[in-house]
């Protein structure tokens, strides 16, 4: 029976107390705090982070496909999964797909991946879900939403949890939505939204699953299902279906916020972190209908290697200074432009030519003298052909730096360079095993940066210009 063979998750470092929103706008604060993606993070970068966590100890070349689930793809017409596949070092013939349009895109991706594996079209599919939805300033969504991602590897080979059954409903009630061109989440009158949507359709799918597979409420070790912006409704669903509070997986509303298409997958990862062989787990997600799944944890759960998952990411956090920082990071206010030279347009051809170096962070190792080296941008990012140390020509093998740790050799905090998070901290680093390169340093506390500090690589968005999101790698302190 196929199922989940690995899991991973990502929660951005930064959080804000919800009381900060009240400080800015007055009104009623929702309790707790929420996650804020850094200015250089979006659904693609968070999905990549989750996928990296999920693939620890697994060769990405062995994975047959990548499904990216989100409602906030940076592109309307360009595949997110194909960008991610290069960053994750997957095969060129991997099946890539973006699944979008619904808050249950995460579970739809899981169902589709599972069916692809069952049909024999792939041995394993990686599902990476992430969302970075934005509520309009001063509204409830601004407080309730959060950012994050989760990744699940589906396959038939020694699953840690088998997927025993599923039940889906399609329902065209649209309580929350975004039309083409909308930046902010829209909502119909909230009682109607909850009564006829979430609180009706989600239990319908769960009940349908339980009936089809003859499961009683008490049979589940954990029940994992989405939480609506009014978090009190989450517990009400449990009561209506006869679940005990102890069975209910924490929706992380007080610590993370509503993470859209990534929410149910993130909660599932949290559940799997605590799961024991034999546990039955319910997974359900709501959005223009609902998906529900019955999972059974196997003995293989004990062989899952080190994951940052939910627990470690949740514990590793830094509060942002204030609400204004959030507005700046999300680009919600127009700031005076930095007085720097105008950027020349991104060259699609130059970036494409260097995709393996830029998105995959591939350098080369000289087969003659053994020196790992990264391409100097002066060369335009194309593969190195002549060794900088021994000048051997065309004697290189591929060498990936993305998964290597490094140490800071030198750094600066640049106040002149333009950034939504000044100063721009730039590091010159030495990779463990060799190799020298320069990167922006993100998620850092400027007061704590020093020579010799260990760092790791993280996939981030460098900038958006004239319709193009430019992704690259940055250094960051070892996260957790």
């Amino acid at each position, binding site marked *: 029976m196929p199922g989940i063979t690995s899991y991973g998750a990502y929660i951005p470092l930064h959080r804000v107390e919800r009381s900060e929103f009240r400080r800015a706008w007055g009104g009623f604060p929702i309790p707790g705090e929420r996650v804020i993606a850094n200015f250089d993070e979006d659904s693609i970068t968070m999905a990549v982070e989750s996928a990296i966590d999920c693939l620890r100890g697994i060769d990405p070349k062995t994975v047959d496909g990548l499904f990216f689930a989100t409602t906030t793809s940076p592109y309307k017409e360009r595949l997110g999964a194909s960008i991610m596949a290069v960053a994750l070092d997957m095969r060129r013939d991997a099946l890539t797909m973006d699944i979008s349009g619904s808050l249950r895109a995460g579970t739809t991706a899981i169902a589709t991946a599972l069916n692809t594996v069952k049909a024999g079209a792939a041995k394993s599919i990686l599902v990476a879900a992430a969302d970075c939805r934005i509520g309009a300033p001063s509204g409830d969504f601004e407080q309730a939403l959060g950012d994050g991602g989760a990744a699940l590897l589906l396959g038939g080979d020694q699953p840690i949890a088998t997927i025993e059954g599923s039940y889906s409903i399609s329902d065209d009630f649209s309580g929350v939505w975004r039309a083409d061109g909308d930046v902010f989440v829209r909502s119909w009158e909230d009682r109607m939204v909850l009564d006829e949507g979430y609180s009706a359709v989600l239990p319908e799918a769960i009940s349908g699953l339980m009936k089809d597979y003859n499961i009683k409420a008490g049979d589940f070790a954990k029940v994992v299902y989405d939480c609506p912006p009014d978090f009190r409704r989450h517990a009400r669903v449990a009561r209506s279906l006869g679940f005990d509070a102890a069975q209910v997986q924490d929706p992380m509303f007080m610590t993370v916020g509503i993470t859209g298409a990534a929410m149910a997958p993130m909660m599932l990862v949290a559940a799997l972190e605590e799961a024991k062989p034999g546990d039955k787990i319910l997974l359900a997600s709501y959005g223009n209908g609902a998906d529900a799944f019955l999972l059974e944890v196997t003995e293989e759960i004990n062989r899952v290697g080190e994951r940052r998952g939910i627990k470690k990411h949740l514990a590793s956090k830094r509060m942002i200074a204030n609400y204004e920082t959030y507005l700046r990071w999300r680009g919600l206010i127009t700031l005076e432009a930095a007085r720097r030279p105008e950027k020349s347009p991104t060259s699609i051809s130059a970036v494409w030519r260097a995709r393996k170096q*830029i998105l995959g962070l591939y350098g080369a190792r000289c087969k003659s003298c053994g020196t790992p080296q990264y391409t100097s941008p*002066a060369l335009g*990012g194309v593969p190195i052909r002549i060794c*900088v140390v021994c000048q051997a020509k065309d004697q290189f093998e591929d060498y990936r730096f993305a998964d290597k740790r490094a140490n800071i050799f030198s750094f600066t905090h*640049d106040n*002149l360079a333009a950034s939504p998070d000044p100063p721009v901290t730039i590091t010159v680093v030495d990779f463990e095993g060799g190799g020298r390169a320069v990167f922006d340093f993100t998620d850092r506390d400027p007061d704590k940066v020093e*020579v010799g500090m260990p760092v790791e690589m993280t996939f981030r968005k460098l900038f958006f210009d004239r319709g193009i999101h430019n992704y690259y790698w940055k250094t960051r302190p070892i996260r957790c």
Partner: protein
Amino acid sequence: MESIKDKVAIVGMGCRKFGENWEQSSDDMIIEAVYEAYEDAGVGPNDIQAAWVGTIASGAAGVCLAEPLKLPRIPITRVENFCATGHEALRNAAFAVACGMYDVVLACGFEKLKDTGVGGLGVGRGLHPVLEGRRTGPGTFAFIATRYFYTYGLSREEGKRTIAQIAVKNHHNGSLHPKAHFQREVTLEQVMNAPIIAWPLGLFDCCGTTDGAAAAIITRADLAKKFRDDPIYLKGIGLAANQILPHFEPGFDWTGFEMNRSAARQAYEQAGIKDPRKEMSLAIVHDCFTITELIIYEDLGFSPKGRAKEDVDAGTFTLEGELPINTDGGLKSFGHPIGASGIRMTYEVYKQLQGKAGPRQIKDARLGLSHTLGGPPQVACIAVFGNSPG
């Protein structure tokens, strides 16, 4: 391989006042610099047989010199080599004369940086559409300071104070030069307490963004005395381009640059210099940032490696010191109109070696050098001059 030593001489130079020359175009500045050089050499436009012009971003092709000067259909070549661009114009002009192709040539460098509307160098995006998007000059050179302080165990305070003394020295010298952009002295406290531009470099650790132009008339050494009694002879010129951006160079120590040392070795060997600290009368070097000047002391052989601080503290490089450096105030006082800088530096060496440096005149000046360090940085040029052959 032959040496360039004593094969060519500079017989005239000009330098337009550097500054925020809002009222002047590049053409205006070129005309003023070149006509001062004409007058200084006693020549006119019809005497120029070929010309080289250096600019990194303020003009294109040889016509950016031909047009303002209306030079009639002679060979003119535009050169560019990052901050060594001005030097590159001199170097190519000198080689053309040395090979006997021409007798009298013009080298001119200029840059109009103040028409961009932004602070800092307005020279564009960087070297790669994605990877180099955010690099700034101060950001790059700050890596040197961070690493130098770390390597030699200087606390933030000690490190900042060491490089601050260089800013104080150069601004003092610049206060004595009527063509400098900045002609006011600064105090150590002002420098130390100035806003940080790129940590640890503060405002006064950085050179200004400036407009300027400078020019030189070059002829064969054996013809030089026909133009003037005090020609200045080229003794050696070295140029080195690093094989990789230092940011990506495995093992690079960030406390000095091999390209500086290589350019110095080439120039010293041609000039026959064994002990530059003792033999040089003065040096005009590339103080784009104060930390750059500090490591140049070591790269050019003026201070032992890691010990430039001792010389700074001892006042070795002040106007009255053992080896005066940046007697005109350097890039700190003149700013850095990139194409013009190498020739502006040479202008000061030329005046000092002729004994015409006014209140900045050092005693018994016989041998001087000008030095530029360009790009991210990735290229260095050093030209050594003397006031007598042999």
